């Protein structure tokens, strides 16, 4: 599979749909520009209706962009039909051909390309081994488990050696355990083959586990693009912070600053946080606090009152009120710690570096 790896570039892509009920037109994807590096694994993540699947289907060629140009490598591909594009897609429903067995399903693309018989045999052997389906060639697809069908779909996409592999929520029909093992599998195979992969999902843990880069989309536009760490620790806005992981938002006016730290007035209490550039005294700011970054104590931090205390096994789940703001937190490894009960007054403690100013 020695082939030039190709990246994908979207330049100012828009797609307009008509709402079938109201007849109104709206942007499913709006003025989106992206660069996906060759050989990288990129996830399009977002709530349903955010435009991620539309973007993927435009790359595959099933939908045509209303504005902008899509490049595969350096070649513009807007005018190419899906069958002429060097991409292969793994569908949410697997979309295996039900009247073919495993072998014919996987070999379908090769036969269309008129690959000689011996080569088909050889490539099939290799690919079925890669997805661990050797010996299942003669099975009909409805005799396979969900995970196996998924592997057939993956093998079918891989065997034609496309430049880019596209995944449309491929694991959403599997049960939770299988989903976790399949995503490790997908990552392993992508790394082994070294292919560029674009993966659509609404499951943030899937996105975290798989991707080199995550693109978060909301209402048709890219909200943020970055590595999983960047997105988790430095979300650009409340939507991203809330969508990736759990987030608490604390709001307050800035009252002072010193050496890169800022002081905010949150619910009447001073809060010291790591500042960011361009902050000004007197302005209102929101900070993001992750539930696992805080703990409860008898003194220091922000005074609060416990409104929910719940043992979850690996952690104690608290909801506390800081003034009128609800904060959720997870105290991990709670076995030897003091457990606060509902109605108790205590203090919410965290490092100034653990919060992120939006």
């Amino acid at each position, binding site marked *: 599979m020695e082939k030039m790896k190709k990246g994908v570039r979207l330049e100012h892509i828009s797609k307009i749909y008509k709402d079938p009920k109201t007849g109104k*037109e709206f942007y499913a994807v709006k003025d989106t520009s992206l660069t996906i590096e060759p050989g990288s694994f990129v996830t399009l993540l977002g709530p349903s209706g955010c435009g991620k699947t539309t973007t993927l289907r435009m790359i595959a060629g099933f939908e045509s962009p209303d504005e902008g140009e899509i490049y595969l490598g350096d070649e513009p591909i807007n005018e190419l039909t899906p069958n002429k594009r060097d991409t292969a897609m793994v569908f949410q429903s697997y979309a295996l051909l039900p009247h073919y067995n495993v072998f014919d399903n996987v070999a379908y693309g090769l036969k269309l390309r008129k690959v000689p018989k011996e080569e088909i045999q050889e490539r099939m052997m290799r690919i079925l081994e890669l997805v661990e389906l050797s010996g299942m060639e003669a099975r009909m697809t409805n005799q396979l488990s969900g995970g196996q069908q998924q592997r057939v779909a993956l093998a079918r996409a891989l065997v034609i050696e496309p430049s880019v592999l596209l995944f449309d929520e491929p694991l959403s029909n599997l049960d939770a355990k299988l989903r976790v093992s399949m995503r490790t599998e997908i990552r392993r195979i992508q790394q082994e083959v070294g292919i560029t992969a674009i993966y659509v999902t609404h499951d943030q843990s899937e996105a975290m586990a798989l991707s080199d880069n995550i693109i978060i989309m909301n209402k048709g536009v890219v909200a943020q693009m970055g590595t999983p760490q960047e997105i988790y620790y430095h979300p650009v806005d409340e939507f991203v912070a809330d969508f990736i992981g759990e987030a608490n938002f604390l709001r307050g006016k800035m009252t002072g600053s010193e050496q890169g730290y800022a002081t905010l007035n949150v619910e009447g209490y001073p809060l010291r946080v790591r500042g960011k550039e361009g902050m000004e005294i007197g302005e209102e700011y929101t900070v993001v606090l992750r539930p696992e970054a805080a703990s409860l104590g008898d003194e220091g931090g922000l005074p609060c009152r416990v409104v929910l205390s719940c043992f979850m096994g690996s952690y104690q789940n608290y909801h506390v009120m800081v003034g009128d703001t609800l904060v959720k937190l997870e105290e991990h490894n709670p076995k030897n710690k003091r457990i606060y009960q509902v109605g108790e007054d205590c203090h919410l403690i965290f490092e100034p570096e653990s919060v992120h100013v939006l």
Partner: protein
Amino acid sequence: MARGQGAALDRKKLMADPIMVTTIVVLITFLTLFILYPLAILLVDSFVGDGGFGFGIFKRVFAMPTFTRAIGNTLKVGFVVGILSSLIGLLFAYVEVYVRLNKFAGGLFKVVSMLPVVSPPFVLSLSMIMLFGKAGIITRFLLGIYDNNVYGYWGIVIVQTLTFFPVCYMMLKGLLKNIDPSLEEAARDMGASRWKVFADVTLPLMLPGLGNAFLVTFIESIADFANPMIIGGSYDTLATTIYLQITGAYDKAGAAAMAVVLLCITLAMFAVQKYYLEAKTAATLTGKASRARMLIEDKSVKIPLTILCSLGAMFVIMMYICVPIGACFPTWGYKFFPLTGKWFAQVFTKYRGLKAFKDSFVLSLIASPITALLSMIISYLVVKRKFKSKGFIEAVSMLAMAVPGTVLGVGFIRGYSGGLFHTGVLQGIYGTGLILIIVFVVRSLPTGTRSGISALRQIDKSIEESAYDMGADSFKVFMTVTLPLIKDSFLSGLVTAFVRSITAISAIILLVTPAYLLITVQINEFAEKGAFSLACAFATILIIITYSAVLLMNLFIKYFGTSRKIKED
């Protein structure tokens, strides 16, 4: 917002697919030439036919008492037949879905639903006359009534009701099965009696469906030609009046105007049925039954309902059986025994039966694969592809459903006897077998398309997309994925088209020339002349042919239908 680029790209992608483009162009040409154009020419003719544009012809036909009476008659018959058929259909459907039936009654129900499919639509008129007419076996020889008149209003109503109620029964059965039993159980649980449950839950849920069944039957009744022709006597309906206006009065312009009136009535009904009632039916009955229904075992309900329906079913079956038996009586009305085969012999020796069967058979055999393939292609395009003229293709092929055969027949006469727009172009096909084949195709296309569309809607769209994505072009996708997956639907479409073609009469009778003898036209002729034994002999052979075709199809699907294996999933 500018959607221009997306649309332009979609068009470019389509153009990159020459087979697809050719198919679309051919389809549009076919639909325009053979469905839209004949209807359009009727409009043109009825406004300008007598020279000069205006309502002159309409004024003329509306001044004819025969015509205005025919409108009244048609609507009256259609209304009553619609109501009776949907009620009887509802009774049968309810009994089948809600009451535990024994094997015998269940078998009767199956036969009743099957009979109208395999028999020519007008055989019941024959048996009605033979059983209950002036010299009817039952009226005269069993009951001693000598002056029973079956011809006219009641004759048509009874015969059409018996012919069309199985269609309602099948439609309503499907709907009843979709009612979630827990809705009715909930009502029972709150203390409602069985009758209350039916009146308060089942019936309101079924109302749009019943309305739908009523309108479908209404349209069928209005469009029916052969039954009023045979059993109507002097009671004329629109279809027969139009026929007589052409064949009797040679008033083609007048017939065109009448056909426009008939078309407007059916189109209005069809529009209500399609856009209002179908949507409503779907809206009220969305849920699939969550689990099996508790069938009614209560003897006080079960026994009377079963007996009532079984008697009804046996009556219908007796009507059909009367046809082959009637063909064996030596002299119908006087001498019943010993049974004889002489009429069958005469069909072939005296009346060129072999040619009639050969012509009908060959023309239908040519038409059916064309119909089946066309309807599958249309369904594929409508369900799976998007392109600009898709709306046109869908609308016109659905429109054909609402066009009565007589109207189409007149349209073809007006449209092609003088060539396209009376210019002589394509005049050559008039009076040939080709035009008969085209009419067969047009007449069965809507049914095939409808079943194709519903079969294709069940197939996940991404299966075809995946093949497309793997590198197959549209033609390859259709041949290697779509067609194999809807093989069953294709095969049954093939046989349905064959059966519909070989039993068709309304449009064909206007277009057939002496060069072709068609069975249905022969049956009609003999029935008109009162040669019922010969008509029955022809009809019997026809039923045998259609029934064998259906049997063959079922066998074929059983052994070669791959889709079955897939469905077992």
